[in-house]
């Protein structure tokens, strides 16, 4: 009984070895290609995040300037009115 169990085990190990040994695997250069691609994706994601922040800052600056311009135009009208009364 013990003998047959050991035999099965050896046969299984041999089969597994044969099965994996026959599968084709990427070589080192191909693996590097994949790693480079992943690094490029990470870099692109960072650049996009930075640009999104820049766009948000610009939108705020634009909103501020629009408010300044509106205030200035209002002030111009007021000053013209006051100067008439001087």
């Amino acid at each position, binding site marked *: 009984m013990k003998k047959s169990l050991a035999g099965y085990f050896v046969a299984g190990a041999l089969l597994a070895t044969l099965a994996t040994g026959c599968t084709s695997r990427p070589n080192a250069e191909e693996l590097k290609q994949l790693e480079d691609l992943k690094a490029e994706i990470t870099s692109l994601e960072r650049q996009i995040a930075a640009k999104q922040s820049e766009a948000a800052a*610009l939108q705020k600056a634009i909103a501020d300037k629009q408010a300044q311009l509106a205030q200035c135009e209002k002030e111009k009208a007021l000053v013209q009115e006051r100067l008439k009364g*001087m």
Partner: protein
Amino acid sequence: MKLMKSVILVAALVLFVGSTAAAQEMTKDEWQKQMTEFTAKRNQLKSNLTAIQAEVDKLKKEDAALAAAVKKCNDDLMALVGADAAAERAFAAKLDEIDAKINELSRLSNQDLWARKGEIDDVQKMLDEVKKNKLSALSKYYERIKEQQNRLDALKKTLETAQLAMTYTVGTWAKDRDCLWNIAKKPKIYDNAFLWPKIWQGNKDKIKNPDVIKKGQVLSIPPKADLTKEEKAAVRSYWNKKKAAEQPAAAPAKQ
């Protein structure tokens, strides 16, 4: 025999573990699948980056155009009031000076304020002058000047109220020993008898002869201050008249 069995078992175990580890490594198919997937993702990200860069460029242009518009509007505003930065600085300094004067006058007691009432008029003149400047039409100055005028008006009001509040009702000579000299001497009035001409001159409509005041007369008390030229002149005139009146009476007495 036993040894042989053990060697076979160990070798089988090593082969099994080795093959299991190899099975966990990526296969070519898996690599290809990941390459395809990541390439698509990279291309999508590149496209996104291009799009957001275009958006940022557009926003930068918009921001620059707005900055130019704001500058132009401010320049137009300064052209409207006909002033440059130096003129504006000088104008603001004048307003600071007025503020400082008003602050100083506001801290004075009513009596001291009365003594320096001329300064209120001076500040009013300064304020009238700045109001003529076109820069005063700018809101930041317009509101400030308005506030200064309000504060100055409040000071004038305080002065008027203080003047009205300072009165003295004359009592009797018998009971209160009230004459202008004694009234001026009272601690609550001037605490200085020599300032009696101030009360006289402040009540010229009620007091024709400073030696004669009547019970119940309500005299206004001008705030404490040195005698003015007019008050001193009035005192000299009073003493001269008094001497002149005494001389004829004195002459017969010598005889």
